[in-house]
């Protein structure tokens, strides 16, 4: 039997970690789908119809799994974090309600038209539905990130005690909802989603291109995969450098607004100047090796690097150490390593982008087998980097659920028992493992089956015959 507080925290972590994969896929694919639909309608070229239909299938499956896992999160604030919901509700509930009405509704209704309606609606409405679906996914992110960023940098409220319970009263909606963190979070997350999807598309396409050109095992429609690879690389070339640039600014913003989290990211215990940016670090005593809060650590890295990062260019700058903040401290090692691996991945993606760009420029894109292997291996890493970034954000905020105001342990529902919480935690562990397996299985099948072909394509049959579409627009 796990303590209800621990079980609720683990369950929320598990359900968000699994859920976030699917919005990332939908938000990242959205701009590509809008582009494919536009090109398909404007040019009538079969390859764009193939691109649109193939990636729409992946989008649709991701959307279904994203819906069913997302509803869980919306109800979990009530089931497992009732005390938080009661306290923060007057400020925090609004964005979730507006997300449903403004974004999710737009997305879910037009998705029906977008996935099932090509034969039933005209080009204009079809294009509108593609844009509406994409816009819906991004609007969704705005409202969810407004809610989350407020937990990081709470503004525009006052705490009032009502019937012995602390309740947040909204005082200044602009300050609360456009809190300082929101902008950075939104930019960093949306760009990361497009980057992660670019990497995944490039990785899958690289496999087929590699098989065809390097292995000499011919692939049907290799032109489809070549086009996919090129479009994905354009996405990567745009997003990868930007991600590093605003990531740097975001880190400085974290230092200014959440110094405790920044200290955990850098494993700085004592306030100091000229703090190095450790590349690796580990406890000096063997007995501390499994203690994420070990204080005696040995590490090596770039001298003055962390000071440079926090101050925006001054290697001598002082960084406030974790000792300055009243305990308990976040599990420093988790935050430290997640941050490091995320940043390393970010730089690796830039390398990959420039490497591919160089090969493409030289006209050798389809010949470099090492590059293809690197792309294939990196296909899931964009999503991994996002997960790690969220670990930094959420674990780094601990012990707070609302930074500086409410501890996470105080936010858990007072009424639930350890048995109930353990039962649902185990249930989710089993169900979500199954869900991820099925999702992987279905996506693999779609990829194996490849793009729709030949007579099945509207853009081909339209050109050859002028048979009336079945049931179209009547």
């Amino acid at each position, binding site marked *: 039997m796990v303590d209800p507080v621990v079980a609720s925290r683990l369950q929320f972590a598990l359900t968000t970690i699994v859920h976030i994969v699917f919005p990332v896929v939908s938000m990242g694919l959205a701009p590509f789908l809008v582009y494919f639909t536009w090109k398909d309608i404007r040019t009538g070229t079969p390859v764009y119809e193939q691109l649109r239909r193939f990636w729409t299938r992946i989008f649709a499956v991701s*959307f279904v799994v994203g819906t069913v896992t997302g509803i*869980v999160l919306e109800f979990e604030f009530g089931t497992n974090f009732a005390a938080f919901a009661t306290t923060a509700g007057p400020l925090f509930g609004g964005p979730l309600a*507006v997300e449903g009405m403004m974004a999710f*509704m737009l997305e879910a209704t*037009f998705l*029906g038209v977008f996935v099932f309606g090509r034969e039933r609606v005209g080009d204009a409405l079809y294009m509108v539905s593609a844009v509406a679906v994409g816009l819906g996914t991004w609007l969704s992110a705005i409202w969810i990130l407004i809610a989350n960023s407020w937990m990081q940098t709470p503004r525009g409220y006052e705490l009032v005690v009502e019937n012995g319970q602390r309740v947040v009263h909204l005082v200044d909606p602009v300050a609360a909802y456009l809190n300082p963190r929101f902008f950075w979070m939104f930019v960093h997350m949306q760009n990361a989603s497009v980057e992660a999807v670019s990497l995944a598309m490039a990785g899958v396409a690289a496999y087929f291109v590699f098989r065809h050109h390097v292995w000499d095992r011919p692939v049907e429609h290799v032109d489809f995969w070549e086009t996919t690879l090129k479009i994905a690389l354009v996405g990567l070339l745009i997003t990868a450098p930007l991600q590093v640039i605003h990531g740097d600014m975001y880190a400085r913003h974290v230092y200014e607004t959440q110094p405790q989290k920044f200290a955990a990211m850098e494993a700085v215990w004592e306030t100091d100047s000229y703090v190095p940016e450790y590349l690796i670090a580990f406890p000096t005593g063997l007995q501390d090796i499994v203690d994420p809060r070990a204080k005696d650590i040995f590490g090596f890295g770039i001298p003055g690097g962390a000071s440079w990062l926090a101050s925006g260019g001054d290697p001598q700058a002082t960084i406030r150490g974790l000792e300055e903040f009243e305990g308990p401290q976040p599990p420093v090692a988790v935050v430290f390593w997640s941050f490091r691996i995320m940043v390393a991945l970010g730089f690796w993606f830039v390398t990959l982008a420039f490497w591919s760009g160089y090969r493409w420029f030289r006209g050798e894109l389809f010949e470099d087998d090492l590059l293809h292997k690197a792309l294939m291996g990196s296909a899931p890493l964009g999503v991994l980097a996002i997960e790690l970034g969220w670990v930094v954000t959420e674990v780094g905020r601990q012990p707070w659920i609302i930074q500086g105001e409410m501890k996470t342990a105080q936010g858990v*529902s007072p009424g639930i028992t350890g048995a109930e919480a353990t039962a649902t935690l185990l*249930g989710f562990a089993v169900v979500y493992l199954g869900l991820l397996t099925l999702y992987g299985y279905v996506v693999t099948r779609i990829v194996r089956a490849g793009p729709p072909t030949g007579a099945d394509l509207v853009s081909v049959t339209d050109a050859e015959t002028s048979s009336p579409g079945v049931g179209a627009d009547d």
Partner: protein
Amino acid sequence: MTSVETLSNGPLFGLPLPDLWFGLLFFIFGTFLFLDGFDFGVGALFATRDDGGEREQLLAAIGPFWDGNEVWLVVFGGALFAAFPAVYANLFSRHYLLMFAILGALILRGLAPEMYEQRHDEAWTRWWGRAFVAGSLVTPFCLGMFTANWLVGATTLVTLPGVLVGLTVVALTVVDGVAFLRLKTRGDLRADLQSDGYRALASYLVLVVLTLAGLYALAPGLRATMRSPLVLGLVGLTLVLAAGYALATRRDRYYAAFAATAGLVFSLVAVVARLLYPSIDPAAGLTVDAAIVPTLSLNLMSIGAALLLPLVFVYFVVLYSAFSGPVEAGESY
């Protein structure tokens, strides 16, 4: 900041916003139950069809709609959180296991059709077909249990009113599913569904009577309200609408039967709302006026809902008109 001050001082235009939000909440719940109700009903009817082609038609009928329909439940959760945060927190944590049963069943229902279409071998389609049926039955049943437990202020998982209302809601979703499928299918399937409609309607009426009798006997606090003209009127309306449904089904007036179903669903939800009011969470002793969110948040949410819900209505009109009429040959899930 004058505008923020105005918005903090009192309800917008002096409107009775707490009551309006109480009403809106049940309107959202009713819309969910009507729209996703037919998806659940189609899931239940799926069990009665063996033919692969017919099963395919059932899935194709709900394919473009179910996801949008389910979002009404998301909006219900969000609106409850935004307007009555203490109720959202108390209610959902009190009915902890029931909430996760609903969520688990919704996962199964959402996933199953997608999986069903992936492979065509017998074992695969049989098991995902069963999962679809199970998810489509368990979700409305648990939702009904949840609603009844909410209404009578129960703190235990299984109660007699809970089971009765659960079964009532399941029957209602089948009534709804038949009405929807009669619009979306043709030929033999459409004709066969007629008798399913009569049976589901009869079960619904019997269960409504049992539920009302059970509530009257078991929840003395509700008796006075149950005898109020509004509730009696709604029960009478249910009987009239049921007769209308039966007649429309007999004469193959598909849209009339579907409209009657909407009436049945909203009548039932209105009865629940009326029985609950002015309380909103009897088990926690919370009334609508006590649980409502502070004024500034309330006014902002009201502006948001007033601007957004008409847009949502437009989205649904676009979606349902794009896919009006029966499923065409070649259309699949």
